[in-house]
Structure formats: C-alpha cells, structure tokens
C-alpha cells in the first residue's frame, strides 16, 4: 500500500475518510494543531480563570463537523496537561448526576483509583506489625480481610481522608474508605454503586455533590495535578439513546448546574461541546446556565482560506517519507488548492478532510496524475457534497 502513495510523496493517506475527532498523527511532532483563532479564546479563558475566582466552565459551540471534538481533544492532550490540569473526556455521559460519576469512575477503574488513594493516604492500623500488611495494596487488602479488620481499616482511612482535606462530611469519608477496603471483594464498579439511596451504594444519599467534590479533590491530590477538568462532548446527543421526558431533560440541566456550581468552589473545570441548537434550547430552558453560569462560551469559527491550507499542509507533512524530496508543501494538491475548493467545503474541517481523503486515496489506486487538477477536485467535491439543484422562482 505504501508503494502506491510513494508517487504522491506520502507514506500513507493522512486524511481520514470519516473525519471525526482527533487523527492518530495530526502533525509531524504528533502534537495536535489548532488554528490560532480557535486556541486563543480558550487560552485566554484558562489564563484568566487560573488567576481569579469564579465559574470555570466553557461552552464550545459548533455545528457538526466544525471541529468540536477535535478541539476538546486538543485541550485534553495539549493545553490542559501543560497547565497541570488533569483532563477526563466524556462522550455522551447520560442525564443524571450519577451517570457522570459512573462514567468517571469507570474511566479510572476501581482498583486503580482505590490503590492510588490508598497510597496517598498511607493508612496505619494500630496493633498490627507493619510486616503483616506487606508492601502492596493487594497484600494490605488481603490481610485486612483475613484478620477481619475491615471496620478498623475503614475508620483509619476515614481519619486520613479528613486529615488530607479530601472530605469533611463523615458519611462521605466512610463511603470513600469503604470504596477502598471493599475493592478486595469487588475490584470493579457497578452502575448501582453510584445511585444514591440504593443498598450498598458508594454515593451518600442527598450528598451527591459533596461526594463528587471529594472525588475531584482526591483525583487532584493523587495525580499531583493542580486541578481536574471534565471535557463533555456531544452534549446534545444525550437524548438520542432514549426519549427524554420533560423531567429527565430538566434533570440533565440540573446535573450541569450542580457541576458548574462545583467549578466555583473546587479546583475543577468544565468544557462542554454542543451544537448551536443545543445552546439555543439550553438557553431557553435554563437562561441562567448560558447567560450567567457559563460565563464564557465561544463559537468555533469556520476555517478561513489560510487555516484550511495550514490544516492540509500539516497533515501532509506528517505523512511525508523521511527522505523528503523538496516538493511543494501542498503536493499532491496544487498550490492553489483552497481557491479550487468551494467556500462551504474548505470552511468545514470535516468536509475539507473528507475531500482530501478521497482525492489522495483515489489518486493512489487509480494513477491519477499529481498535482491534482482543478477538474479532479471539482469532481470529488461534487460527488461528496453535491450542489443542490436550482429551483426556479414560483408564485
């Protein structure tokens, strides 16, 4: 297959056929590239809110294919780690508060989370020789179980949880401690663990928000991070899985409000990506959410000609062979690529990438001459995104 691309001075097709989210190799140095106009509002927001108090929530608005997921991934992989913000990515998390807790804890894994927290807390059980507990988390859990010291272990862990400032409420301290100790019997989370009020639930009833805040604090402390960020993609798709009742719709918005409230008090950030329609309906149903709470929201601007060219150039550069001949940076595309594309194509990252993907893929297999001609590109554009037939005016 590589051979077929050699003629195009590429090792592979750097454009994915169904552009959605982050490609495996976006640039030469593997670091995701975003246009300056996309990055700067988010960077300004991060700069400002890292220094001041207030709601740390940002809504990224964009149509389908405008690059919302890509921008969230850029935050996750590039911008947030630079600022020592630990990022968690959520794709369509569900409508209720425990759905989010569930999604978060499953992402972390119970054993991993419990182990990290245990290491951070370093509990000491009185009356036991330290050698009895061994050095590893698993050995400690086994010994506690064997000597029936679960209650003592929970008490000690609760004390440490308070001492380290993870939780002040006793019930939350107890539940978190239980989460660690019971990992021996059940090293995984179940959905019911996060449904407050259910028997054996790890979330205390009516204390979901403080519990969540404690988890966030724990995550920050055990990860040595300055703060934690949630990146929530496809906000508008939550209702796709099932038809939401009016109550569920409001529950979803209530979840968002509670999370946003947390961002004011905790070292916690939220970035939500949504379509303009989702923003509009959210604003109508819950005006405070976008007007006052989400103090910042920004629309992803469509790519301009320069940015479109840069996107293509970056992708091509990542796929060039090591002994790169001195070819034009846009080869196998012509130098005036963007001029040959329609405004509605090059302004949309998904459309642009898709057109480029088909152009390169077809050229590799069908011996299409390079640089590509205007007719060839026009044909692909029309195939993928045909212009609608013109209607005659009528009365």
């Amino acid at each position, binding site marked *: 297959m590589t051979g077929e691309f050699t003629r195009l001075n590429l090792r592979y097709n750097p454009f994915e056929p169904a552009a959605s989210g982050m490609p495996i190799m976006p640039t030469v140095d593997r670091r995701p590239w975003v246009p300056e106009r996309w990055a700067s509002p988010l960077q300004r927001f991060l700069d400002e809110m890292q220094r001041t108090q207030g709601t740390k929530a940002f809504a990224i608005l964009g*149509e*389908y294919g405008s690059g919302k997921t890509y921008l969230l991934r850029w935050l996750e992989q590039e911008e947030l780690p630079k600022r020592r913000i630990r990022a968690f990515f959520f794709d369509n998390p569900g409508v209720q508060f425990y759905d989010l807790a569930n999604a978060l804890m499953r992402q972390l894994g119970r054993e991993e989370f419990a182990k990290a927290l245990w290491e951070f807390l370093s509990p000491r059980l009185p009356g036991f020789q330290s050698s009895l507990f061994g050095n590893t988390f698993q050995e400690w859990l086994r010994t506690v179980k064997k000597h029936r010291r679960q209650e003592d272990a929970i008490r000690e862990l609760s004390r440490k949880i308070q001492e380290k400032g993870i939780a002040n409420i006793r019930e939350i301290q107890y539940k978190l401690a239980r989460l660690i100790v019971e990992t021996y019997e059940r090293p995984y989370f179940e959905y019911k663990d996060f449904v407050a009020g259910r028997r054996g639930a790890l979330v205390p009833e009516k204390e979901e928000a403080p519990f969540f805040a404690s988890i966030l604090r724990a995550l920050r402390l055990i990860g040595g991070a300055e703060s934690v960020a949630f990146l929530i993609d496809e906000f*508008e*798709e939550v*209702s*796709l899985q099932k*038809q*939401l*009742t*009016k109550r569920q*719709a409001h529950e979803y918005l209530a979840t968002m409000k509670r999370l946003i409230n947390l961002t004011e008090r905790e070292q916690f950030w939220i970035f939500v990506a949504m*379509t*303009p*329609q*989702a923003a*509009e*309906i959210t604003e*109508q*149903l819950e*005006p405070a959410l976008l007007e006052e709470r989400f103090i910042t929201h920004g*629309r992803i*601007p*469509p790519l*301009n000609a320069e940015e479109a060219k840069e996107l293509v150039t970056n992708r091509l550069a990542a796929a060039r062979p090591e002994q790169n001949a001195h070819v034009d940076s846009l080869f196998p595309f012509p130098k005036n690529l963007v001029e040959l594309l*329609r*405004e*509605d194509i090059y*302004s*949309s990252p998904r459309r642009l990438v898709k057109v480029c993907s088909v152009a390169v893929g077809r050229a590799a297999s069908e011996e299409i001459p390079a640089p590509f001609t205007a007719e060839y590109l026009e044909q692909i554009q029309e195939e993928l995104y045909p*212009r*609608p*037939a*013109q*209607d005659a*005016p*009528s*009365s």
Partner: protein
Amino acid sequence: MALWMRGSVSFVALRELIAYIAQHPEGVRTKEMETWAREKVRLRTQSGKLVSKTTVYHYRNTLRHLGILVVANGRYQVARERPFVLQLLEAIRPGTPKLSLQERELFARFVIQNPDCREYFFDLFMPEGLTDYDLEVFLEKGQPVVWRRVELEGKRVEELYNVEQNKKQRLIRSEDERQALLYGVRYWARNELGFMDEIFLEAIGGLMFPVYLRGPVPDPSILNALREAISAQEEWTTFSLRKLAATWGPRYRLSLDRLYDTLEWVYRKFSRYVVLIPTSESFATLTATSHQVEKYHLRGYYQDENGRYISHMRVHRKLKEVM
C-alpha cells in the same frame, strides 16, 4: 353554552357537502346527508376512517354556524342570500383532494366573520380598539398570540395572550373550550385554511401569527431582510432559523413554509455561500412528552431534502453582494 367548533372538521369534506346540498334546492334531511356521506361518497376522516354520524353532525353544524347552510322545515339548504355564499358556490370545485387557494380564502372569510370564532379566538390577535375587522384587516393588523400550558391553582390550563398587549388574554379551563379553540379554530386557521401559522419556542410556547394566503417564492422581503442581516465584518454569519421564523414570520406575515422555501431557494442558488446546520432530532424535541407533541415541535423546523432537521444556517458575507 357549549362551543361548536371542532378540529375533526375537514374543510375539503365541508366543500363536498356544500356541493351536494347545492344540488338539492329543496334541501337535504339529516338522514339523507348521512347516507350520502357514509354510503355514497364514503367520506373519510384524516386518519382514513369512514366518517361517523357524529362527524357528519359536526360538518353540518359547522356550516350552519358559519352561515353557509340554513335549516328550514328540517331540511338543510345553502343560504344563497348570505354574503360570500354565492361566490363560494361559484368557486368550489368538488372532487379534488385539497382546497384551492380561492376556496381557502373564501372559507377563511366565513371563519373570521363568525362571532364565536372572533370572540373566543381572533379578537385576541387584534390591536387595542380594533373590533371591526375582516380577513384583510386581520391579516394586515393581527398581532402574534402565544398559547402555552400553565399551572393554575394546581390545575393545568392553557393560557393565550397577545404578545404586544399582555392584558389581552384568555384562559382555557374546560375540555369543551380546548376542543373548540385549540383543536378547532386554531387548527382550521393554521392547517386547513392557512391564514395563520405557528412556531413552538421552548421558553415561550406556541407563537401564532396571521399569514398571507398567497405570495411569491422567493419572497423579496425575506431576501432583503437576509441581505441586511448578513454581517459585513465576519466572514460567516450564523442564523438560527427558528429565531428568524419567529421574527420574520409575524413581521412579514409569512408562513413557515414560504419563509423556509425562500431560504431553501437561497441555498440552492448560492450553495457555495450557504451551509445548512442540522440538529439532532431528539434534542429538537427535548421537552416533548408524546409523539404528537414531538411532531408539533418539529413542524417549526426546516427539513431539507435529506430529511434532516435544520436548526441554523451559516451564510458567507459574499452572499450580500451576489444575491
């Protein structure tokens, strides 16, 4: 007194009934009317069922209240001496599946001049002090009216109010009023005769407004308004189509169909400068509680040829120059 307006009334069926009765100058008895409707022409309701005797009752009752039929000696006759009835008789073309523009316009005149329809519904749309109005004045001067469900003393009621004069309002408390106004007159004006349209907005409710029955596509006033609204500074301007509909619909008295047909014409003619932005169908019906309500919410959206519901439209500034 119970109100007589009902949503089960099809104006196509009313037209057929008028044509049938007009053939019998001596008048038609109830029984004959039912036999004709149910056995001879086998009239169907919108759901495709054979009309019931009750539906035939509502048909003749509606025509009698609208002043198109009179009853003399137990026989229903066409009230030829009343205003517009002769015009209607000349205009109607029975046998077609839809009403012609002229038929719709004439029926609209009967509905708008009916005292019950005015008192309970159309008066709400009229500016303060304007009580003497006909179809033309209603279309020219009528103001938008919102209907929405509210809770009052623990009960769910419907509230209708004039957007420009909040004091002008009506509460619908009984099922009879609900059937007559929301599913009767409102439905006739919006769906059957097309001289009123409506868009659902989550925060407000159903926004109803008068619309002209005829007009060109593309509509020049919408093309002008669009040209004006495109930002000269930004490369692309994004419009919420429902916001446009809720603003330009009442302002230019244009139905959603004509407005969206105009925007579709723009999209087809200048496709490189226009990007349609679809929405998730389930988000568009986020607050809907039933399939019927879902359909009602979706009717405010423009649906493109691929069946996608379009919530927004992105327009390039070059459109300002080329359109």
